[in-house]
Every structure is written in C-alpha cells, then in structure tokens.
C-alpha cells in the first residue's frame, strides 16, 4: 500500500496537529466509572499502546474516541477535528478495528471491503484499487471471493483489520486484535501493524499482552481501573520502577554458602533462595553480573545457568498497581 495517496476528503494536517487529542474523557455505566479522566495525545506516525488488564476501560475509551459512545465528560479531536461537533469529518479520519469481529459472514472478503469502502466515500476505480491493495496487505487475495463465514478465525481477524484500513485513516485504532488467535495469525497481525507503522500510519493499539505493547509501541499508557497510571516511552516507564534488575542463578554445590557470600557484596540489594535457585535484586545487572558469578563460584556453588531479567512493562504494571497484568 502507499501512504502517499491522501485519504478521501482529507484536508492537509499541520505537522504540529496531533492525530488524536483526547482530553479528560469520563464515562460512567451506572455506579461504575469505566473511564475516569483519561487524556491521550498521539502524534502523526506514532504507534501508541493502551496497556491494561481486562476491564481496565480500554474498549470504553476507544469507543468514545471513535464516536460510538458519547463521553460523560471530556473531548476528542481527531486530526484537529472535534468528534462532538463534526462527527462525520472526524470519523472519516479514523479507522477502527473492533475487538469483536465485525464482518458480514454471508458475503465475500472483497464484497465486505467494497461495501465499507463505499460507506467511507470511495468509489469507482479508486475503490477497486484500494480493495485489491488491502486484500494483498492482509494476505487474503487468493480467498477474496469466498464467503467470509468459511474463513478461519485468523483470516476473519485479518479481514476485520483490512476494513479499518481501506480509506487510509490518519489514525488506525486496533482493539485487542490478537485475542483468541493462533500464534501464526497473531504474528502475521503484529507484522502487518509494524508494516503500517513503518509506512507512517499512526496507530492506537490496545492490549493486555505486555509483549505486544513492548514490541510495537513507541509510547505506552498503562491503564487500570479506568485511569491512566503512567504514560511515556518504554524507557521512561521502566525508569519508574527505579531501574532494578533481577539475576537468577541456578546450579548445584554449596548454594547456601553462595547465598551468604552474596549478602556480603554491596551491589546486591536482595537475595532470595528457592531450592537450587538464587534470585538477586541488583541496581544494574550487566555491570554486577561478573562480580556475582565470581563470588558464588568462590563460595563453592557450581553454576549451571545465569539469567538476567531486566524490568519490562509487566514489572512497571506490578510496581504501579501492585497487581499482575494477567490474572
């Protein structure tokens, strides 16, 4: 696909205009405040992750961003266009890939794309070309004529994504696109998101999989209980944990003596023993590891394995909320 083709009816966007500016979004369902003063800003070309466990309020946030739900408070601008005042113009700049499949089962992939393309205002040769390009991109060109109900789960997901891309949106919003998908399709989906991001499309990606956010996203907002707990680049978020690393040592010999010796060296902040494994918390694992290995060897432990665990978004989530990301 080519990103040089402008979206239909799009007007030039100043480079300083964020593709998404959501300010103080609030949404309540009865007594539940599903989204509690959430603000997000996404710059052109950015891949932005919304990472949080089930029920954190990701889908509700996205529904307000895409004009499906009206917020109880706050505002949404898409490429500078206010969703509340100019919903049609704002929606034209957005492509949503909903969490649940949203395709017509009785008609083919091509017919699905053509139908939604027409609703997006595409027609004639332009529509045909775009449908062809998208089928190629999501890898469904050779099955384009089959009714989509005959597709595997992964193929349906890819068609679902394709529909969101048709009109070259300024912002592509994907809501947990890999849930319930086999590992192969999952990888194909992640690759196509990477490809789109590589071409300069801004992406808002929600997930409860830490690895996906880590792999795809330039910036991540960690959400829980309807609130943004922290937001930044991955490095910035990891800074929040204090930047401590974990070293896990495994092996035989005198593990108990090794534990005692480790407590004597200053770079080791904590030591925990679990059978033949020692788990150490250190300030900076790459520089500390040499001294650690020498110390335990001198104490009579025969090392069979050394693993360094750097903090990841999972540790950030744990640090911020005291909960594991996945239950």
């Amino acid at each position: 696909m080519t990103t040089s083709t402008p979206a239909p009816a799009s007007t030039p966007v100043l480079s300083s205009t964020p593709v998404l500016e959501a300010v103080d979004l609030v949404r309540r369902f009865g007594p539940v405040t599903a989204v509690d003063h959430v603000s997000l800003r996404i710059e052109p070309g950015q891949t932005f992750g919304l990472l949080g466990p089930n029920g954190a309020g990701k889908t509700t946030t996205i529904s307000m961003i895409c004009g499906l739900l009206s917020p109880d408070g706050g505002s949404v601008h898409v490429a500078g266009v206010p969703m509340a005042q100019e919903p049609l113009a704002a929606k034209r700049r957005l492509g949503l890939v909903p969490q649940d499949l949203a395709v017509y089962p009785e008609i083919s992939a091509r017919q699905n794309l053509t139908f939604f393309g027409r609703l997006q205002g595409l027609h004639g040769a332009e529509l045909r070309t775009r449908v062809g390009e998208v089928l190629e991109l999501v890898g469904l060109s050779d099955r384009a004529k089959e009714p989509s109900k005959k597709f595997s789960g992964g193929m349906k997901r890819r068609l679902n994504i394709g529909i969101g891309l048709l009109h070259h949106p300024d912002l592509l919003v994907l809501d947990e696109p890999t849930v319930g998908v086999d590992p192969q399709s999952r990888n194909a989906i992640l690759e196509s998101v990477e490809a789109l991001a590589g071409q300069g499309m801004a992406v808002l990606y929600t997930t409860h999989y830490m690895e996906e956010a880590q792999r795809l996203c330039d910036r991540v907002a960690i959400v829980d209980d309807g609130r943004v707990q922290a937001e930044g680049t991955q490095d910035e978020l990891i800074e929040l944990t204090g930047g401590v690393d974990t070293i896990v040592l495994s092996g035989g010999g005198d593990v108990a003596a090794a534990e005692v010796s480790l407590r004597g060296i200053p770079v080791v902040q904590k030591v925990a023993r679990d059978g033949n494994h020692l788990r150490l918390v250190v300030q900076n694992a790459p520089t500390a590891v040499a001294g650690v290995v020498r110390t335990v060897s001198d104490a009579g432990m025969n090392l069979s394995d050394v693993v360094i665990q750097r903090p990841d978004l999972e540790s950030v989530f744990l640090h911020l909320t005291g909960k594991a990301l996945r239950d």
Partner: protein
Amino acid sequence: MRTLLVLVARDLRQHVSDRSVLLFGLLIPFALSYVFNLAFSGLDDPQLGEVAVVVSAPTGDPAADAVVGTLGALADQGIPVTVLEAGPGEVADLVASGEADLGVTVPEGFGAAVAAGEGARVELAQGADTGLAADVVSGIVTATVQRLDADAATVAGAAGAGLDEAALGALAADLAAAAPQVEWAERTVAGEQLGLAGGIVAGQAGMFLFFTVGFAVLALLTEREWGTLPRLRTMPIPAWQIPFAKAVVGLILGTVSTSVLLASGQLLFDGVDFGWWPAVLVLVVATVAAATSVIALVVRYARTAEQASLLMSVIAISLGVTGGTFFRVPTDGLVGTLLQVNPVAALVRGLGITAGGGGIPDLAPVLLTLLAFTLVILVLARLVPGRKDAL
C-alpha cells in the same frame, strides 16, 4: 443519500438470497390461501359442509319467523342447511351433543322488543369443530337480526314512536323475501365486497406481511450480533441512516411480496379481483408502513434477534387472528371498531373497498386509520425506554 442507497442495496441483496424471506413472504401465505380456499369452497359444494341448525322460536311472532325463514332460504343458495325445531331448553343440549352444529334461540317477545326499539337479540350457540360453513350460517343469522334491528329503528325513527304490529309484519315480510342471501354470506365473512377467496388471500397477505417486514427490520439485531452494527456507527454516515435503511428495506420487501401475493391470488383463484391496482398499491404501502412501525417497536423492546423474532411472530399471529386472517371477526360494536384499527383488518377492509370498485378517495377512512396507527406506534417506539445502543 448515496450511503443510504449503499446500505439498502446490501440488505436487499442479503434478503433476496435468504430463503426464509421467499418462504414467509410468498410461498407459505400462498399455500395457506390455497388450502383455506379449498376448505371454503365446500360452501358451494352440496357434498360438503352440511350444517344442521336447531331453532327454537316463539310461534306467531313475525319477526322470529323472518329469522327462521332466512335459514330456509339458504338451501336455495347452495348452502346445505337442515333446520330442526326444538323447545327453548333443548337447543343447548342438541348443540353440545353434536346433533346440531348451530343452535338459534329466538326469545319470547322478540318481535315486541324489536318493535319497541329495544334491540333485537338472538342467542347463537355453535358446537366445537363445526367448520367454516357453520361460521357462515351463524354470520348470516347475526346479519339478519342486525338488519331487522336497524330497519326497525329506521322505521320507528321515521314514525316518531314504536312500530305497530302491522308495520313490523311488513318489515319482516320484506326481509324474508330479501335479495339473495349468499351475498350476505360473502359480506359477512370477508368484509365489504371481497369474495371468500379474495378475503382469504387478503388476510394471509396482511398477516405474512409482518414476517417479511420483520426480516428486514430485525436485520438490525442480527447486525448487532455480527458486530457490524457498531462498525457501521464508526463510518462517516449520519447515524439515522442505519435504522432508516432497514425501514426502507422493510417497505420495499413488504410492498413487493404483498403485491405479488395479491396479484397471484387474483390470477390463480376464481372470482378474485381486487379492483383498481393503483388504489390497491397505495393501500398496500400504507399497510406495510404500519407493519414497519410495529416491528420498529419490537426492535426497541427485544434484547436478542431470537427474542425479537418470537415477539414478531406472536404479534403477527395475534393481528392475523383478530384481523380476520383465519376466521370472521365482528365488524360492529366497540370490539369491532377496535379491531378495525388492526392493520391486517384495515388491509382486508380496504381491499373490500377496491374490489367493490372503490378508488383512492373511497379508501380515505382506511388510509387515515393506517396512518394514525403508524404514527402512534412510531411515537411509542420513541418513548419506550429501549436499549441505549439499539438505534
């Protein structure tokens, strides 16, 4: 506007390739019309549908004689009626035991009551499983009594007082020698000028119309289950177009299927002629609009597509039953007036008018009834606190 057409076109294509629309919109109602028509045609066939009527009537009462006389005249019209005389207390037993299909009890003082303008009352008892011929006969008796009552009231009104014996006698004699009774039979069964077969086709078309329109409008709920409804709502189209497109599809499918049904009924059944087709079409469109509003209300209430189809079937059948799809319903009195508001009944009544040579101006009361019905239901649909995300 362009996007509305895109929405409508996709739905139409879906319904055209969906066998249940063809089945419920055309095949089933046509097959039922055919079957009911066979059953009804027994009325003209002396081998079928012998009706035994047991009558108890006071002697020496000319008004009572007129009622009984009506029954005797039926045989001449090809309806095989056997009349048994009995005492007032025996009628109910004979009907209950099945010896008679129909019991008619004309009370003592019947003529005097009619003459005094107190209203003519005759008790009718109909056995279980007595068939349509018995329905027709009971309708004729009712019509005779009503006519007697109405005529008496007219004459009495003109005279400014009660009728005397002689005047009542003259009226009753008129009635006994009245025009062919079978014409009454048709009028009673199908309403207005529709023949028996025409009435059957009209009633079936009116009821099944609700299913056809239902398929179109309830597609909204199917789309909710497919997830395509929220996706449509993220498209750059005005929000109202999504439900409105379903209503347009309902109007198109309903109008086409009803018109095809009526036309094939007219072509294939003897003696069916609905009259001037432009007027018929206007009537059909008005009825379809009323049906569409009902289904829109169902969509507001129902949570799932299954629940909605169930609700729709219940409504379609109730309106069919009370609208005359399966058997004759009263057209007079409070109940009769209420039933006339039923779109199925309105369609049957309107087709009676067009069949009798009526044009669009003659349809005005029926069309206004349908319009009022549609508006009231649409207002209700807006007021009902339905699902927030439904429309």
